[in-house]
């Protein structure tokens, strides 16, 4: 794990730049190799779709840059000019959104082409479930009785390279400390197994997820 950590520190010490995506994929793949089942890599790059030198389609750029921290409904409801989109993407990039500098124009142009003042009004959908309950703790079910010491080891191998050794997030992964999701084990497991944004699917077994949850819960509230 040490080489991965060193790579991560190098990434974190600089602005989001040209090598971040390659490092992210490398780290993700390295993390996958340590899990108990065969890895499912992040989406395969497609050459040149988004613009000069880009390895991703615009849709992929949105998914990779935006959806780690918030849902795609947030960009979809904006009605902004090209200049406003450019400023927004640059602001988010400055906050750690994972988009290569060379992809910023393509991402901004794509968003501006879809979500501008000429687009149809955004209609917020009605929530389909009890929104208050949707974030509150659920029964641990198959993820009960995890062992934190085992979870720490597994976390370090599988998650820590991106989510940081202390789980407080890095330029690659989001903070996992003191999150409501830690007490919604089934939802947590679903995200781990499906992946999200830049995070590839992690096909962990139920007891492994229970252990990781038990460890993350020890990092608890301050």
């Amino acid at each position, binding site marked *: 794990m040490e080489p991965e950590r060193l790579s991560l520190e190098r990434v974190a010490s600089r602005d989001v730049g040209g090598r971040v995506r390659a490092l992210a994929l490398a780290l993700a793949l390295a993390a996958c190799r340590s899990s108990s089942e065969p890895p499912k890599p992040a989406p395969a790059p497609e050459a040149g779709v988004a613009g000069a030198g880009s390895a991703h389609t615009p849709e992929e750029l949105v998914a990779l840059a935006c959806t780690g*921290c918030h849902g795609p409904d*947030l960009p979809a409801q904006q009605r902004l000019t090209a200049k406003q989109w450019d400023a927004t993407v640059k602001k988010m990039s400055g906050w750690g959104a994972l988009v290569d500098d060379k992809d910023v124009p393509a991402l901004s142009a794509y968003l501006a082409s879809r979500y501008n003042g000429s687009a149809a009004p955004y209609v917020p959908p009605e929530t389909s479930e009890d929104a208050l309950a949707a974030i509150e703790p659920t029964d641990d079910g198959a993820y009960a009785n995890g062992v934190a010491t085992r979870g720490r080891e597994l976390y370090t191998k599988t998650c820590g390279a991106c989510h940081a050794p202390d789980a407080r997030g890095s330029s690659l992964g*989001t903070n996992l400390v003191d999150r409501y999701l830690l007490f919604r084990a089934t939802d947590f497991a679903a995200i781990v197994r499906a992946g999200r944004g830049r995070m590839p699917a992690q096909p962990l077994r139920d007891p492994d997820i229970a252990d990781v949850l038990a460890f993350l819960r020890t990092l608890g509230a301050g």
Partner: protein
Amino acid sequence: MNRRGFLELGALAASSAIVARAFAGGGKLLAYGERPQELATPLSAFDQLETPTELFFIRSHFGPPALVANRHVKIGGGFVKKPLQLAVSDLARFTEVTLTAVLQCAGNGRGLIVPRVPGVQWGHGAVGQASWTGVRLRDVLDAAGLDPSAAHVQLAGADLPPKPTVPAFKRSIPIARALDPSTLIAYRMNGAPLRLAHGAPLRLIVPGWAGNHWIKWLAHVEPAAEPATGFYMEKGYRVPKTPIPPGTALTPDNSEPLTVFPVKSLIARPGDGEHVARGRQEIVGVAFSGAAAIAKVEIQLDDGAWQPAKLEGEPGAGRWQLFRFAFDATPGTHRAAVRATDAAGAVQPEHAIWNPSGYHWNAWHRVTWEVA
């Protein structure tokens, strides 16, 4: 999860009536964001003095932390003699207070601002009124031995940014606002324990001030000589000191932190685009101002003269009253606009003042409906 937020409406050629009905909602929260939850109250719910908790809007920057029932709020820093760590159960030694107050997101109405600005594109629904129960922040600061030279109280919740590169959400309020008897650390909402989405176990209540001061999942209270620093004080949640032309950037000199929300009224029914039967009808809604009690609410029906509506409920700064305006509806298309005036003399304007983040939208609310 509900995926309809990704629906593209271009192909549906949505009429304005369809859009208006969707904004009005049908008794469920409306999703402007599912992760983190950015959920709006349907307009149709604004015909009540107390917004039901299950329909009360939800907003945060980073989504909720874990639900920890005994999570402590730390009262600390160099301007208290006796730092405290208090969980809900520790607050029993203070006098319990219940008050009714409007909670409104600073960005409520952002989606209606022209020219458009970035951010959660709220329609009308990032506002509600509830009863809040807790203890006075003043009493807690007294117990901590507040240094009288403190000029501000810096505040933070337990919600951590998703990445270390994302600025933490920190605000401060001036000491006078902190010591105001209406400023509470609350643990109940509408008579029931706070839910996680609304800040459980403890949140700040700052009646009359925009929601960004009502810190959820309250974790840190630190009296200080200076205001808090960082993005959410120095760049976010600021408004121009005087109106500026659209497109003008804010600077530290031409802007200031927003605080009190301005006078505003909203029509709950009839809903925009609604079809109703002829006969005796009522225009019903809410009116509120952060600065003062509501003095009057006026309705302009079918572009006629402004006429007074009847007010219900207890008047007060930072709380809303219901208004009702009855009339006999004849068949055809009808239009209404509403404007409120507060006791300080502020009148709800025809057009909201543009600002780069779309804060404090409070233009006349207009609806158009059909009588069969």
